């Protein structure tokens, strides 16, 4: 554990997951975990590369913590294989793994001071006293807890405890650090500040992070890539941009951000475009690229609210335009969100940023409006 490789390897920062020759640092192969008849983790496969911040994102109870516990050795997989840094982890107990974990509850030792908490892992490695002291004080300053070194955990605030837990899990310089909802107990403002700090720390130490969260904004901010989980399965893996802009299923589109979903069937299937007939719209929806599907197949078109345009006048430069009337307006400060009731009866969410302070062409409740989106704004999802 103590090879002392604090300096991150100077590797080219090209996305390793796009490189077919890159060797993943952590490989999860068809891992399943059952509790009795209940399947908590269902045939999960993942490749995570060195230096990544990989977020496991999913609702409560979807198996995120269980997957982390499998990686750190507190649970044994019912089937499948976990390989960390080229080593199969089967049969390796938690205390012998070269990974560390920051627990959801922080799990600080209540009877030890902050300093002793952080030093504990180093003591177990039998490092010389002087080195332990040096590394503990490095960590204390990294997480800005120098003044609190001799306090007990119950004398600290939630944010301070979180820092101690982070320091304790980083002090052994693990190659892989797992963080279970690390910022869950913090309030919104502190959470946002800490997110950036986490990224800074991760970059300066070059540790690979696997972060569990149920907060999609947090996942978006922190991660190099996101794995979206539901019911024990990973449904999509991709960069925050990919996950947001190209969701592959209704679930992912709906889970990340908000979305307008138009259910329908493929009516025309061409090489370069398809038409999708939906009861939600008066005319077929135009999609400017071919998709793998057959005529008559049930699909949905997902359109983000900020990609829908709204106007009292005709929208000329768009093929997908529909008419309706404004049903609700929510002023959010930096943007306004409109609910438009289309003539088909479908409700559409439209979000517009408030660039001007006032607009002579202000949209009011009950106005008849045109809504539409550019050809490439809609994403077709079939599952």
């Amino acid at each position: 554990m103590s090879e002392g490789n604090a300096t991150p390897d100077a590797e080219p920062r090209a996305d390793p997951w796009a490189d077919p020759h890159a060797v993943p640092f952590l490989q999860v192969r068809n891992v399943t975990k059952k509790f009795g008849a209940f399947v908590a983790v269902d045939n999960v496969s993942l490749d995570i590369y060195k230096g990544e911040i990989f977020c496991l994102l999913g609702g409560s109870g979807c198996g995120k913590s269980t997957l982390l516990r499998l990686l750190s050795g507190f649970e044994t997989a019912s089937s499948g294989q976990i390989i960390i840094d080229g080593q199969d982890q089967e049969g390796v107990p938690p205390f012998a793994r070269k990974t560390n974990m920051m627990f959801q509850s922080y799990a600080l030792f209540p009877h030890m001071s902050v300093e002793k908490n952080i030093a504990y892992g180093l003591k177990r490695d039998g490092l010389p006293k002087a080195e332990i002291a040096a590394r503990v004080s490095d960590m204390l300053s990294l997480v800005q807890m120098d003044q609190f070194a001799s306090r007990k955990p119950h004398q600290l605030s939630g944010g301070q405890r979180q820092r101690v837990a982070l320091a304790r899990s980083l002090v052994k310089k693990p190659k892989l650090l797992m963080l279970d909802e690390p910022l869950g107990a913090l309030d919104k403002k502190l959470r946002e500040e800490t997110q950036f700090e986490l990224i800074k720390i991760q970059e300066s130490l070059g540790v690979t992070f696997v972060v569990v969260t149920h907060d999609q904004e947090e996942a978006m901010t922190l991660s190099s890539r996101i794995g979206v989980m539901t019911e024990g399965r990973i449904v999509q893996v991709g960069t925050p941009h990919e996950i947001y802009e190209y969701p592959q299923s209704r679930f992912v589109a709906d889970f990340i951000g908000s979305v307008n979903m138009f259910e329908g069937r493929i009516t025309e299937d061409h090489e370069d475009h398809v038409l999708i007939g939906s009861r939600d719209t008066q005319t077929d929806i135009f999609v400017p690229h071919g998709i793998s599907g057959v005529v008559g197949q049930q699909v949905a078109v997902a359109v983000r609210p900020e990609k829908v345009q709204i106007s009292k006048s005709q929208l000329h430069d768009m093929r997908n335009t529909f008419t309706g009337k404004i049903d609700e307006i929510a002023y959010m400060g930096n943007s306004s969100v409109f609910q438009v009731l289309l003539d088909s009866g479908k409700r559409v969410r439209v979000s517009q940023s408030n660039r001007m302070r006032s607009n002579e062409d202000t949209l009011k409740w009950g106005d008849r409006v045109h809504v539409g989106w550019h050809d490439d704004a809609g994403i077709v999802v079939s599952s």
Partner: protein
Amino acid sequence: MKRRSRFLLFMGVFGFVFLYAPILSLVIFSFNESKLVTVWGGFSTKWYGELFRDPQILEAAWISAKIAFLSASIAVVIGTIGSFVLIRFARFRSKSLLSMMITAPLVMPEVIIGLSLLLLFVALQGLIGWPGGRGMLTIIIAHSTFGAAYAAVVIQSRLVDMDLSIEEAAQDLGAKPVRVFFDVTLPVIAPALMSAWLLAFTLSLDDLVIASFVSGPGASTLPMVIFSKVRLGVSPDVNALATIIIGLVSLGIIVAALQMSRSKRSSAN
């Protein structure tokens, strides 16, 4: 409303008087000058002096203290191991059965516990020649067994409350399970161990029935001596002795309660 609260106050006072008047009168009469237990003859501490000159009582007190100390220590060790196994390793179904069985001595009549232990000792002696006659050793064994039951109840409740993830965190940082137990589990449950020890100590000091069953010649505990003295008539030095015991026991209970509440508070954070 006012009527009712006055009624409640009255009931409360009555209840406390009912509970504590006998004890209070005992304490007061331990400072009685007169030899007659029922007649106040002025304040004096002479019975306390008398007490400390009575070799029989001093010896019994020493025996009782030794028994209580040793049996409380054994009880805490057994209780800790028992509850740890029960909470951490037993499967769900067997857990409730075992936990009921471990607490059974709490509700079992003392006479039955005493009798069954006596029979066991006699049978053991016939079979393997141990424990070699009845005396202090047999009392210690007897007190350890029922002390362990009480200790287990106290320690179990602390172990159940304990956040398992702090043990996991220690393992995650490289501590093997035995280390985790001594570095993390034991310090965290230490206040419970302390109060369990005090409880077992007090119970042992208190016990008359079980000790009478399993004791032999030359090993009379303090309660046994008091009881035999009282049968010959209540003498004021017994009052003095009882007052000292009450003082010690209350001290033990207060310390145990403080320990428990302190550990609750620090673990609540």
